[in-house]
C-alpha cells in the first residue's frame, strides 16, 4: 500500500501575504488513480493543485510551510523546479495553445528539453496526439495554427502537449469548464484512459464529473480539507455534515 502513494502532503500551509489560503493540509495521493478536488470557489482547491508543481512560485508574496513529498522526495527542497514541472504536467482551465502550429505546440516541450531530431519529434508528437485521442482529427492539419481549431480540440492538444514531455503526473485545473458537454465527455474518457499510465489530479466544479471519473475525492472548504476518501463513499455516504450539504447542493 505504502508503495502506491505518489504524493505525501504533510501540514501544508499557504499564505498570500497575510491571507492564509491553505490550512494544515494532510493528504496521500495514490499512483495511477484519478483524484478529484471539489469545493466552492475560493476554497483553495486550485491553489493546492498549483503547489503540487510549484506554479505558485510565480506569484509574489506566497509563503508555504509544511512538506510535499513525491516518491519520497521533498519537492520544495530536494528537486529542481524545472525537473519537477516536467514530471508533473499541468492542463489549465482555459485551453491555452501557443499561437503556433499544432505540431509546434506539441513539440514545444520536447524541444526545450533538448530533443532536436526531426524523426524523434515526429514520433513523440504522433504518440502524444494519439494518447490525447485527437490524432485522427488533426493528423492532416498539423501545420495549422492550434488556435484555429475548436475549444475542445484545443484542450486535447494542450493535453497532448503536456503528455509529450513525458510526465508521471497530470494536474488538471477545471479542464472542462470552458467546454461544451460533448467535448467534456471526450476529455473525461481521455482522463480515464490515461490513468493506467499516469497519476491524475483534477480540480472540478462539476460534482457529476468528480463522481463519474475519480477514484478518490477531496472536499475543500475555506482552505481546509473537510473530507477525503473513496469517491463512492464521499458521494454516497459522507461522514461530514458540510460535505453532505455541499454535494446535495445546499450551498456552493
Amino acid at each position, binding site marked *: 500500500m505504502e508503495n502506491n502513494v505518489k504524493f505525501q502532503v504533510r501540514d501544508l500551509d499557504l499564505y498570500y501575504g497575510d491571507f492564509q489560503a491553505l490550512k494544515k493540509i494532510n493528504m496521500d495521493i495514490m499512483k495511477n488513480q484519478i483524484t478529484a478536488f471539489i469545493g466552492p470557489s475560493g476554497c483553495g482547491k486550485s491553489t493546492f493543485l498549483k503547489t503540487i508543481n510549484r506554479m505558485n512560485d510565480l506569484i509574489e508574496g506566497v509563503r508555504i510551510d509544511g512538506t510535499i513529498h513525491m516518491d519520497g522526495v521533498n519537492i520544495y527542497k530536494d528537486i*529542481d523546479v*524545472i*525537473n519537477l514541472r*516536467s514530471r508533473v504536467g499541468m492542463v489549465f482551465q482555459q485551453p491555452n495553445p501557443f499561437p503556433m502550429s499544432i505540431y509546434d505546440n506539441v513539440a514545444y*516541450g*520536447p524541444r526545450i528539453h*533538448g530533443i532536436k531530431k526531426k524523426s524523434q519529434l515526429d514520433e513523440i508528437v504522433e504518440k502524444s496526439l494519439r494518447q490525447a485521442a485527437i490524432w485522427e482529427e488533426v493528423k492532416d492539419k498539423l501545420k495549422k495554427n492550434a488556435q484555429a481549431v475548436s475549444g475542445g480540440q484545443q484542450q486535447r492538444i494542450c493535453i497532448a502537449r503536456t503528455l509529450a514531455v*513525458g*510526465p508521471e503526473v497530470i494536474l488538471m485545473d477545471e479542464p472542462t469548464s470552458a467546454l461544451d458537454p460533448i467535448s467534456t465527455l471526450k476529455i473525461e474518457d481521455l482522463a480515464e484512459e490515461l490513468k493506467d499510465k499516469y497519476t491524475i489530479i483534477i480540480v472540478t466544479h462539476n460534482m457529476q464529473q468528480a463522481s463519474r471519473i475519480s477514484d478518490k475525492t477531496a472536499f475543500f472548504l475555506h482552505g481546509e480539507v473537510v473530507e477525503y476518501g473513496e469517491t463512492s463513499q464521499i458521494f454516497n455516504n459522507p461522514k461530514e455534515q458540510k460535505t453532505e450539504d455541499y454535494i446535495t447542493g445546499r450551498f456552493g
Partner: protein
Amino acid sequence: MKIENNQSRIIKDTIGKILLYLASALSVMTLVVIIGFVFVKGLPGINIDFLTRQWQAKTTFINVELKNTEDTNLSDSYIASLGAHVEQNEDGYIAVTKLEKDSVLKDSKNLKGAAYEVKVDDVITKVLATDTKNITLEELNKQFNDAAMNGETLKLKVTRPGGGIKPMVVSTLYIILLSLAIAAPIGILSALFLTEYAKRGKILVVIQFAIQMLAGIPSIIYGLFGMLVFVQMLKMQYSILAGALTLSILLLPTIISTTSEALKAIPKGYRESSLGLGATKLQTNFKIVLPNALPGILVAIILSIGRIVGESAALIWTAGTIAQIPSSLTGNTASAATLTTKLYQLLKEEGDVASACSIAVVIIVLIWVLNLLSKWITRRFTVKN
C-alpha cells in the same frame, strides 16, 4: 522525460540573461552618455544672462537731456546727472547697474527721435566722441557734470549686450501657441467625429488611412511642402505663421490618435445615461464626453508641445533661423528661430558646440518636464477612475 541536458540549459539560460542585462545596460548607457555630453559641454554656459538676454548685441545712439542736479551723493559709481549707478565691466566699458526712478536715461531718445529706454545691464560705450574704454569713473562723472551745468544734450552710444536665448524662447512659445491654436481644435474635433459620429464605412477608412500616412511622413517632407506652399506660393516668406501651419499638419496625427484613445476609454454608460436624460448628441459630447476626456486631451497637447520643441527639419525652411522676437505673423519681421533650429544652426553653420549644448540643456530639461507632466496627468486621472 529525463532531462539530460541540464548543463547546457543552464549555460543557455545564463547567456540569455547576460544578453538581456547587456542590452538594457547599453540602452540606458547611451542616454547617460548623451545627457552627460550635453550637460558637460553646455552647463558652464548657462546663467541668468544666457536665459534672459537677447541673442545679438544691439547698439543704439541716444540723446540724453542731462539733469542739472545739486545731488551731493558723489560716490564713484553714481552719476547724478544721469540718475544712474554704473560700474566698469570686464571689457573696461561703463555698464549701468541701477537706475534711479527719475533717471533721464529712462526717457532718452534715439537719433530718429523715438523714445529709447536704457535698461540695467546696458553698456555706455561712447560719450560724444569719447570712447569709454578704461575711462575712470571720476573723469566720467566730471564730464557729465560739466555738460549738465551747461544744460547740454549729450549723445551716448549704448550697447545692449547679447549672448542670451530670450528671442528663441519667445519664438518657440509663439510657434507653440500658434500651432496649437490651429491644430488642437481641428484635431480634437476630428477625434470626436471619428469616435462619436463616423459610421463604419469608406469615409472612416479613408480618414484613418490619411492619419496613418501623415504620421509616417518624415518632417523633411513637411518642410518641403511648407516651403513650397506657405512660404513661396502664399507669400508668407520665412515666418512663424508658415512654420506654425506646417507644424499643425504634422501634429494632427498625434492629437487625433491620443484624443481618440481618451474618448474610447470613456464608458458607454456615460453617453447612454446622458442621452437617456433627453440630452442631444451634441450636448452629450460637449457636456459629458469631452470633459471626461480632458486628461487625455491635455496629454495630447503636451505631447504636441514636445514635438514642436524638438522639431527642426520642418521649421528651418518655413520659419527661418533668425534670432529675433517676431513682431508680425508673416513677412520679413516674422522670421524666427526656435531653440532647436538655432541649436542646429549653431552646430552646422558656426561650429559652436558649447553654445549649442547650452541650448540643448534647456531643451532636454524642457522635454523632461513635459514628460513628467504628461505622466503625472495620466496617473492622477486614471487612478481616480
